[in-house]
């Protein structure tokens, strides 16, 4: 008596039949099943969107940090030993915490004694720029001629600040592209603009550079740093950028800077940051962020999974008689188990795919609002694997209950 076909053939057939049953059972309870999927949908949507925003921000930040140049050391004030990791994360130039001794012209002068490096001071503050009857808030940066090269600024017309520090005392300004087009009506050279009511002559215009993590680079105005200090009535410098010729020299130059500044400032109340450090720090921050977001999304997936389990238990109870009929015509435990397990997996997976879809739409919408986001292949795979696993975990118990029903008990069920 031949009882069974080959195992694999039987299994394959059952899956195609089971899928048909699953789809018909799910579509016969559309509202209920959609509500159930919603939990998974939201969970996957949250995971994918959050991870892709994290990924987008990381890519954007990295691009900008790399844009700063690989061979730059940022010198800022502050005591590295007293700083916590979270305070260190800020971009260079945020050294103005309470009780911190600022960098001054003295420090700048001292660094100029080191051989083979380029040094440029930076002082940043927002200011009011006006021209004829137009007024706007802009980012005013005091610096000197070396900054053009260190930051690779693209000139549209005119020239950058070009005088040596001793001579650069005239009120000259180099303006960003947006100021050029929107306020000066694309005719700027030798015009006089007012910054905080002080007249400056426009000597140069920069090409369009876009938005960076430090703000709109096209709303930036560069003026000689000593002029800026006169306006502020002090000799403070926010950041000193030091550029070296090659990356190999970074460590030795850092040592030299430390020696020189310690000598002049008495203690090590300053901080040296390099691009690779900044990349490392943003990496850590975004990693932590993703972990936290992942936790939140994990909780919503858990809730979604419980929803699936609930609806599957209801479904098993409702279909007790169906299970009895199937067993009467020859279904084995594992046939019934698979049927209900696949239904749970299917629910979770459809929820997951819908969640992915919404996340994709969400990321397109965010891009419109200039929020960087990038849906990576790995986040898609993770979302699909996760929803399958949720389906299995929360589907196994209801499916087991269905499979364990005694045929005669199930058939008698009213």
């Amino acid at each position, binding site marked *: *008596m031949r*009882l*069974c*076909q*080959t195992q694999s*053939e*039987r299994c394959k*057939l*059952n899956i*195609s*039949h089971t899928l048909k*049953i699953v789809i*018909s*059972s799910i579509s*016969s309870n559309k509202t209920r099943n959609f509500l159930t999927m919603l939990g998974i949908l939201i969970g996957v949507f949250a995971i994918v969107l959050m991870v892709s925003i994290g990924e987008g921000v990381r890519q954007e930040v990295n691009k900008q940090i790399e844009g700063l140049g690989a061979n730059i050391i940022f010198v800022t004030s502050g005591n590295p030993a007293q700083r916590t990791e979270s305070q260190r994360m800020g971009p260079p130039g945020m050294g103005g915490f309470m009780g911190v001794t600022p960098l001054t012209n003295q420090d700048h002068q001292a660094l100029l004694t080191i051989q083979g490096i380029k040094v440029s001071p930076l002082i940043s503050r927002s200011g009011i720029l006006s021209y004829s009857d137009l007024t706007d808030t802009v980012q005013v940066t005091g610096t000197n001629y070396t900054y053009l090269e260190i930051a690779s600024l693209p000139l549209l017309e005119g020239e950058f600040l070009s005088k040596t520090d001793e001579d650069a005392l005239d009120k000259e300004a180099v303006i960003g592209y947006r100021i050029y087009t929107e306020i000066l009506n694309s005719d700027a050279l030798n015009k006089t603009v007012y910054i905080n009511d002080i007249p400056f002559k426009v000597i140069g215009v920069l090409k369009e550079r876009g938005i960076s993590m430090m703000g709109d680079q096209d709303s930036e105005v560069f003026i000689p740093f000593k002029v800026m200090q006169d306006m502020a009535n002090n000799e403070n410098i926010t950041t000193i950028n030091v550029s070296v010729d090659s990356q190999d020299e970074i460590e030795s130059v850092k040592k030299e800077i430390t020696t020189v500044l310690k000598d002049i400032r008495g203690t090590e109340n300053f901080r040296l940051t390099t691009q690779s450090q900044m990349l490392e720090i943003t990496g850590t921050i975004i990693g932590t962020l993703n972990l936290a977001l992942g936790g939140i999304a994990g909780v919503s997936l858990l809730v979604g999974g419980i929803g699936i389990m609930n609806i599957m238990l209801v479904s098993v109870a409702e279909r007790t*008689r*169906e299970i*009895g*009929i*199937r*067993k*009467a*015509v*020859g*279904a*084995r*435990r594992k*046939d019934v188990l698979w049927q209900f397990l696949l239904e749970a997996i299917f629910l979770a997976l459809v929820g997951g795919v819908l969640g992915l879809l919404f996340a994709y739409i969400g990321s397109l919408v965010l891009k419109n609002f200039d929020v960087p986001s990038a849906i990576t292949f790995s986040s898609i795979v993770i979302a699909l694997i996760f929803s399958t696993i949720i389906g299995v975990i929360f589907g196994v118990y209801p499916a087991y209950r269905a499979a364990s029903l*005694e*045929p*005669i008990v199930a*058939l008698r069920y009213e």
Partner: protein
Amino acid sequence: MIVMETKNLGKIYSFDSIKVTALNNVSIQINQGEIVGIMGPSGSGKSTLMNLVGCLDRPSQGEIWIAGSRVDNLNDNNLAIIRSKQVGFVFQNYNLLPRLKVIENVELPLIYQGVPSHLRRKKADEVLERIGLKERMHHKPSQISGGEQQRVALARALVTNPSFILADEPTGNLDSKTGKEIIKLLQDLNNGGVTVLLITHDRFVAEHTARVIHLKDGEVIENEALPNPIREV
């Protein structure tokens, strides 16, 4: 050849401390190609007997033999395989799956046998043809009459070519005219070689078989041969 045999079969239902003896010491034999009636008043243990010989339930004592093998001591998985290969059920309330079309209901037992889909469709087609419901194959059970549903159930029982068909009050939910059609169908199938166990409380229905086993209070009280069963035309 004996297709199905029970030896001293007994079934006791117990809940809490109450025990109900539904079957006691039932020994019957069904031969290949027979049509046998199992008759008795309500509560006499007919359905219990059908559930046991159909491997839907396990006996409290005794043995069941189907197609030469003992089956009462098999595990769940093997019982499922016996149901799949050896037994065809027809229930009083049809027990079709409402979401499946007629043809899909008929194919269902073949799915659990692992029959490839084109063969499934072919066999289900043939059986529906045989019971005269081919033109209804794409309807849902709710779209056809009770008599037609019972014929579909019969087709589902036949499609696997089982060793015997167990029909428990198959006419119980039908008016007498459609009931007679079902009985005639069972007789025709029996003429074609199918072994049929027809379970009923109705003397008139039982008289359509060639032998009637009388049950009372869970015991066989008479084994009556009917030399001239009624023939429906």
